[in-house]
């Protein structure tokens, strides 16, 4: 789509000059005078009774100002209660009748610990070094309790219970059924059934979490700087938990180095650090270290699917069945969000009439799982897209052809799936051309010439993954646009940037909507002190929600400015045009009235100012979407597998993506590329591994392997923009899309490369040892034969 004004232009990011000079300001760069530092003692056990916590030596250690155990913390701040997680919209209740159990989370463990890394005590000292020295002096008595790590095991009747008052470990459960799946399976020409497991991995942003809190001794107001995606939600939470009026508490998310959902949750430290600052009357800082992040920040992805597809002889899919078990970890903090996303993205771009899905979410003695870039979609796409390839093999059909035959066609739009989305609206795909995306991805990946180079030793295969993504979920986002007397435009929005380039894209939108120059717009976000209302940047929503809120506010400002300019020039507003920040009468472009002069005209110092007009040329808007808009994508990848060493090489990776109208192509490409790399991490390298005792085996970057620039493949991207009819900008979200496809696409490609050997890929990551194991098993089972030196 060609640029339309500033929208569609690949403007350089205004953020980068400052960040590249090292002039960023992250939470750890904020160090108020007299700031103390906190450190946390964390549970070394996955499940144990805490019978005694002895802080007496720790509080006497050099530099220690205070130490808190669970009982003290509970008395000062209470547990974390996630009321919002309990809310189930009535249409969702009617559709799937869910069980939703949400536990309060102690800020520090009181009587029990339920996962390794759970905070048990906090020490506040003059420095982090001294605080950590004191942690070693805390004596905690634990009594072992039985541990359950595996979510399927947790659902067995004799499994150890995470919540002693519950009869089982089921935190969430629901079922969905449409059509007549039993009849469809009975009448099918071909069926496949497999167990696929999406393994646990996590966001691991380059900047870990961090909190600094300071009470102003003059007025008692509390300021909290947090590496958060949702500063306004954190403010509301802290106001309730600590008993502050919201306007006496300001939460700022300064520069944030990546979040990917992990910083959209509220954590015990978010409460404890401000609590300590209030109690001690001194600023307190806590910066999460990497070991804490891996163990204690939220994880993602772990699901087991028993999925079955039924098809007729032409490859039309007649029915889908899936029995899903989701590992919640030790607490459910966000309720339905992730597991329900898995349901509403299970059908993806496919038109399937009969569906039978069961979801059970199990508590286990592992770290908490929560949204992570895709939030339930990569898990479900892994299962469905793997099953599609198994079905294609069963039918002897090209996997891309099978997909195309079953896709919702553009002329079926808007297309109702029969499901209800998490926001309570019927799930209706608003726009998109899924077969077009598939064709584009195939064209981009151009697999044939690479496949022709395949040999017995180095086998080459191609894999696809298609998905839809509900983006721009409500309830709302807010924005305020104001014109300063000098002509500068300030845009405030309720979200927060973790590196997405909001100051660039939102300025493009505002400048266009208002009629000013891009360089005259300054975008401010992530600060509850700048704007009273806000929701935050999660779930691929800021461009859709904040973007459209800005359009609404800017339009109101423009119309008001036009009315005042018309008075100033004594002509009709209809005869005025606003461009490049100045009004001109139509047909007289030489006469200019700068927008800044209009703002200045409203000054209370101006005796000629119009009566009854407020002094600021500004407007605010709350944008509430009717429901989500559906982005979509198809990934295609060609891999080479070294049969003897099991090493997988990505030869070429292609993504055809539809995120509606593209505001800034460079930033959009960057979002996709970053998402793809995070997905490649999950497909090939990253896994959070717990042993049977619930110990996290991959507790540092020595064992938790992120992909680096060396692992990046050749990437080919294309945007097929089908504007959304649901919002004025026509945009869809794209923050998560890139991360959804890779685990499925790469697994499909590896299986394709090794299909002559009879290999079936059921879980990742596909490191060389696992790939060799798959080959050995397949050869042993007599599916194929392969000669290597070592076997």
């Amino acid at each position, binding site marked *: 789509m060609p640029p339309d004004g500033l929208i569609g232009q690949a403007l350089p990011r205004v953020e980068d000059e400052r960040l590249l000079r090292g002039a960023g300001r992250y939470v750890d760069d904020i160090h108020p005078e007299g700031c103390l530092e906190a450190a946390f003692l964390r549970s070394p056990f996955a499940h144990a009774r805490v019978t005694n916590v002895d802080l007496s030596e720790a509080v006497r250690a050099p530099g220690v100002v205070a130490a808190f155990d669970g009982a003290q913390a509970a008395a000062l701040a209470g547990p974390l209660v996630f009321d919002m997680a309990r809310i189930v919209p009535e249409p969702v209740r009617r559709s799937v009748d869910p069980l939703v159990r949400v536990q309060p989370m102690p800020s520090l463990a009181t009587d029990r610990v339920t996962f390794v890394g759970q905070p048990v005590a906090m020490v506040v000292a003059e420095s982090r*070094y001294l605080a950590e020295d004191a942690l070693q002096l805390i004596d905690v008595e634990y009594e072992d309790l039985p541990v359950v790590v595996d979510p399927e095991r947790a659902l067995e009747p004799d499994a150890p219970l995470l919540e002693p008052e519950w009869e089982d470990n089921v935190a969430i459960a629901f079922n969905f059924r449409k059509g007549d799946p039993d009849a469809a399976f009975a009448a099918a020409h071909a069926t496949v059934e497999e167990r696929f497991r999406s393994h646990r991995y996590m966001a691991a942003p380059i900047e870990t979490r961090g909190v600094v809190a300071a009470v102003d001794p003059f007025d008692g107001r509390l300021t909290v700087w947090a590496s958060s995606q949702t500063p306004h939600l954190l403010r509301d939470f802290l106001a309730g938990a600590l008993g502050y009026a919201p306007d006496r508490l300001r939460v700022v998310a300064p520069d944030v180095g990546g979040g990917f959902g992990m910083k959209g949750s509220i954590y015990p430290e978010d409460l404890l650090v401000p609590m300590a600052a209030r109690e001690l009357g001194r600023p307190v800082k806590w910066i999460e270290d990497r070991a804490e992040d891996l163990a204690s920040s939220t994880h993602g992805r772990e699901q087991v699917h028993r999925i079955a597809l039924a098809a007729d002889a032409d490859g039309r899919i007649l029915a889908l069945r899936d029995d899903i078990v989701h590992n919640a970890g030790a607490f459910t903090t966000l309720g339905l969000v992730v597991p329900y996303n898995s349901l509403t993205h299970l059908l993806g771009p496919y038109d399937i009439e009969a569906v039978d899905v069961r979801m059970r979410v199990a508590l286990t003695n592992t770290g908490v799982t929560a949204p992570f870039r895709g939030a339930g979609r990569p898990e479900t796409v892994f299962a469905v897209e793997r099953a599609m390839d198994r079905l294609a093999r069963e039918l002897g059909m090209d996997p891309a052809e099978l997909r195309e035959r079953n896709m919702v066609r553009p002329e079926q739009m808007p297309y109702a799936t029969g499901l209800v989305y998490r926001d309570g609206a019927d799930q209706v795909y608003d726009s998109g051309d899924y077969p077009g995306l598939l064709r584009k991805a195939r064209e981009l990946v151009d697999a044939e010439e690479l496949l022709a180079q395949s040999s017995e030793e180095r086998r080459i295969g191609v894999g696809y993954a298609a998905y839809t993504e509900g983006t721009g979920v409500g309830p709302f986002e807010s924005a305020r646009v104001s014109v300063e007397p000098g002509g500068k435009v300030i845009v405030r929005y309720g979200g927060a940037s973790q590196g997405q380039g909001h100051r660039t894209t939102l300025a493009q939108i505002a400048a266009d909507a208002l009629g000013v120059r891009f360089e005259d717009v300054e975008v401010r976000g992530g600060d509850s002190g700048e704007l009273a209302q806000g929701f935050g940047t999660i779930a691929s929503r800021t461009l859709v929600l904040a973007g459209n809120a800005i359009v609404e506010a800017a339009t109101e400002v423009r119309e008001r400015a036009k009315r005042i300019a018309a008075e100033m020039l004594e002509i009709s507003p209809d005869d005025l045009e606003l461009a490049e920040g100045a009004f001109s009468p139509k047909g007289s472009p030489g006469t200019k009235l700068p927008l800044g002069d209009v703002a200045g005209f409203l000054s209370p110092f101006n005796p000629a100012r119009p009566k009854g007009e407020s002094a600021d040329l500004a407007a605010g808007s709350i944008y509430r979407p009717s429901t989500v808009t559906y982005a979509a994508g198809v990934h295609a990848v060609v891999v080479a597998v070294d049969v003897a060493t099991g090493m997988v090489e990505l030869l070429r990776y292609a993504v055809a993506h539809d995120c509606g109208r593209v505001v800034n192509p460079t930033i959009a490409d960057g979002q996709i590329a970053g998402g793809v790399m995070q997905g490649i991490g999950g497909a090939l390298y990253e896994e959070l591994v717990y042993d049977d005792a619930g110990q996290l085996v991959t507790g540092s970057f020595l*064992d938790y*392997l992120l992909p680096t620039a060396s692992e990046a493949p050749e990437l080919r991207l294309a945007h097929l923009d089908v504007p959304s009819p649901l919002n004025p900008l026509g945009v869809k979200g794209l923050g998560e899309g890139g991360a959804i496809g890779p685990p499925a696409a790469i697994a499909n490609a590896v299986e394709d490369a090794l299909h002559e050997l009879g290999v079936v890929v059921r879980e990742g990551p596909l490191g060389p*040892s696992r790939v060799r194991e798959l080959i*050995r098993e397949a050869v042993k089972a007599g599916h194929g034969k392969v000669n290597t030196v*070592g076997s």
Partner: protein
Amino acid sequence: MKPAPFAYHAPDQLDEVLALLGDQDHEVRLLAGGQSLVPMMNFRLAAPEVLVDLRRVESLRQLRHSGDGTLAIGAGVRQSALLREPVVTDGWPLLSEGARHIGHPQVRSRGTVCGSLAHHDPTAELPALAVALDARMVLASASGTRERSADEFFVSYYTVALEPGEMLLEVRFPRCPAAAGWSFKEVARRRGDFALVGVAALVEAGDDGTVSRARLVFCGVAERPFRALDAEQAVVSGASFEEAGRLVSEAVRPMGSIHASAEYRRECAGELAARALSEAWERATGG
């Protein structure tokens, strides 16, 4: 992730280093590149009471090519020198190639050759290269110096033949036979990771066009660098490289980890042996 308290010294003379190292009443550790020790201290897996930093000792930063063809690398020389110094890249190409697999440029610019040898992670490249190239280790303490072969030096996981109060002062690589073909092969999860399996191979061709000498030393398959003597002998006796690889797979008894099973390392060692021998042979014969 902050270290426990420690005393820090950065003397500029070697005898001061050795005097501090000789302190029997405290746990003293040398700090060279810090690429292994500092993370261990930050995790509090290591908590030395005294840290002696070698960075100011100029005499340790020398990389010398002596008259008899020996390459001597002091305790302060960074791993990046192995990729940068023409004397190494020309005379010991195997050493350069192996060092290319150590971490990333940032790691190699800090990490030292002798530090990696003295730390002795058995999945690291340099211990295997030292054994493959018949390196001599010069050990120093306040009471003098002594020499050990690389084969004697590496004992077991993170354990070497250093006595309390003793440091690895220098590693000496004898002249590499000019006619030798060489190869270094490694599989790792990602570029720059510790090897799942790695192998250094050297092959010399006799006048009759057969293999007259072979050397195969592995990292990642045992508690110390593993020299595949049976496979070396078999190759000299005319066995194919694939056959030699099979002998390697039979001989090794690796441990498994979350990154690679024992079975994987066993079969991969054989595969890499065959590939490395084949490449080394091509280099030896100009083929």
